[in-house]
Structure formats: C-alpha cells, structure tokens
C-alpha cells in the first residue's frame, strides 16, 4: 500500500482487484475512478473524437470480464491501455468498412468540424492537436503515452504491440516532427 495525498494508505490495484473478486463492488468503483480519465485522455490524444465515454466503458467491461488473465506482470493501467487500443483499432476498421459502403455526406464534414471546434478551446491545444495530427498513428500513440501518460518504453511497447527499440525510434521521430511544427507555427 502507498500513502494517499490525504495521508491514508492507498490500496494498490492488485489489492482492489482481489477485493472485487471477493465480492466487494466498491473496489470496482475505486479502480474505474482511478483509471477512467487516463483512458479518456489517451483515446482523445489518439484521435478519437466521438464516443470516448462508450469506449472507456467497453474497455472496463472487457477488462473486468477477463481479469483472471491479468497476472500483474505489467501495471493495470498499461493493460487497460492495451485493451482500449485494440477496441479503437476495431472501431476504426468498422468505420472504414462502413465508409466503403456508405457514401460520406457533406453534412458529416460539417458536424465533425463543429465537434472539433467545440472540443479544442485554447490556442495552445489547437497547435498541439495539429502537431499531433502530423504524426503517424503509431508515432502519435507512442508520443502521447510517453509525454502525457508518462509510460516507460517497455510499457509503451506492450500497449502498441511493438518492441522497446521501435518505441524509442517512434518517440524520437515524433518529438522532432512536433518540435519543427510548433517552431513553424
């Protein structure tokens, strides 16, 4: 157990998991409360614009359904990111398929644009978003996991299904691109 900011001992994720297994529903609430915002930020940084709450909810439902397969080799948050990323990929594949069959209408562009305008309030956020858009999907995932979530290369490699070396390369290429983009703006 680690001390909480209030001085109370804070239960680890594994302790909360064991409590939930023992039938304590409040442990699930603690776990969801602890990790849900990080999952939402990761989804938004990775380019998700709509249905982020549903995505986070699906991530937790799947994670709790297969919690017996979580052995604690990585942190729970890293494991959750991995599940969420797979769900995002599934969602994108489904969207691609539907785009191939259903023609995109003009109103779709307008509504997407309006939603983006609403999401990004500050100028700095707009600049950062644009710089992240200049990255490849994998570079963006690696960069945001490293900079915004503070994950190690080992954890990032686990989430994106790659190696630590590849994650390092993606990070260095990403920071170079972002730096140049922000300098030019």
């Amino acid at each position: 157990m680690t001390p909480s900011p209030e001085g109370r001992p804070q239960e680890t994720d594994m302790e909360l998991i064991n409590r939930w297994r023992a039938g304590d529903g409040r442990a699930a609430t603690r776990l969801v409360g602890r990790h849900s915002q990080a999952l939402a930020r990761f989804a938004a940084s990775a380019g998700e614009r709509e249905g982020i709450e549903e995505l986070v909810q699906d991530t937790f439902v799947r994670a709790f359904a297969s919690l017996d397969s979580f052995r604690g080799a990585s942190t729970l948050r890293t494991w959750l990111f991995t599940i969420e990323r797979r769900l995002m990929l599934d969602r994108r594949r489904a969207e691609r398929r539907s785009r191939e069959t259903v023609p995109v209408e003009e109103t779709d562009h307008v509504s997407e644009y309006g939603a983006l305008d609403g999401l990004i309030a500050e100028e700095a956020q707009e600049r950062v978003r644009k710089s992240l858009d200049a990255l490849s999907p994998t570079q963006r995932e690696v960069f945001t996991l490293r900079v915004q979530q503070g994950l190690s290369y080992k954890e990032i490699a686990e989430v994106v299904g790659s190696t630590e070396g590849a994650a390092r390369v993606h990070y260095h290429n990403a920071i170079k691109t972002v730096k140049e983009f922000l300098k030019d703006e």
Partner: protein
Amino acid sequence: MNKCTDSDVQEMLPDLLHRALAEGERLRVEEHLATCESCQEDLDVLRTVKSAAVFAPSIDVDRVVRQIPPYRTIVPAVERPARTRVVSWLVAASLAIVVLGGGSVLLQSNGSPASNSPRYQQLPNRIAKAPEATKPGSTEPVVVPMAVVQPSIAPHPHALALAADADGLSDGSLVQLMNDMDGFDALPGSELDPVISVDSGDSL
C-alpha cells in the same frame, strides 16, 4: 544551437516531467539542462504537449461500474480446476484404448468366419505337403500328388505366398507346382481379403 549527444538525458526528459526519476537521475538531468539548449527546447515542447492535453470528456464512473457484471457470474465458465482437466484426459485416453482395442478385435474376428469355411479348411492340409521337399537331408525330389491341389478349388491369394517360400524345392517339384497353379481360378478382384492365418513350421 548544437544538437545534444546525451541520448540518456534526452530519454529521461518525459520522466522528469512526470517526476518519475530517482534523486540521482533527476540531479544529473537538471545539471545537463543548465548547459544544453537543445534539451531545454525539447523540455519546453514536452511541457506544452503535456499541459495542452487534448480535451477529453469526463467519465461517469458510476455508469461504467453499472455495466460491469459481478465476478461470480463471469468466473465459472472461464476456468476449470486442474483436477477436472486431468480426469477428463484420463477418461479420453481410456476411451481411445477401448475403441482401438475393440477395433482390432473386430478386424480379427471378421477374418475368422472365412477361415471356418470348408474351402479354407482344406488349404493348410493341401499346401502343407509341398514344403516337405525342403526338409534338410532330403535329396530325393518329392512329387506332389495331384490330389493335393485341386484346380477346381480357388485358393485364397495369400496362399500363394506359401509358394514364394519355395527356395528349397527341387526343379521337379517347382514344375509340378506351377502346372498345378495353372489350373487355379482367377484371383478375386481388387478388394483385399482378410489375412488367413496359416500354420508355419511344425505343421509343414
């Protein structure tokens, strides 16, 4: 501005932002930052990106938790105790042995009715006489009587295998045997017949 060559420090910059460095590492990075413009610039970029995190909606925790089924309803279907799995394997192995063993018994018993037919009962007696010429010490050619192999009776194809073991037969016996074989009926079709057990050795 010179490009920084200390890749270790470059890689630790995000950890510095997240206060994830040990005391010694933090001091080393801060010392380096005091003299390296490139790393200072990198750190500024990282701070901007971190503080300007893309907007994400706040998550309704209770709503998410309501969708999670209780642990008890998930577990039983997922994993069975190891002992149950071992027992299942033993049952499967026993069944396999019974099926294979029974199959071989059936195969053998399928062959036996044929050997009970009068046609095959005569064969050992008739053919058994020919190899007598192979007995050691026997120098006189043995003439196989015509009654031994009757052309009107078609021998089983495997009976011919006996003739293949005729190295010790004299020329006369072989000629006689071949003449007798000319009188055999045609072999049955392509369908294989069950193996006929023929006494070898003592009865010959």
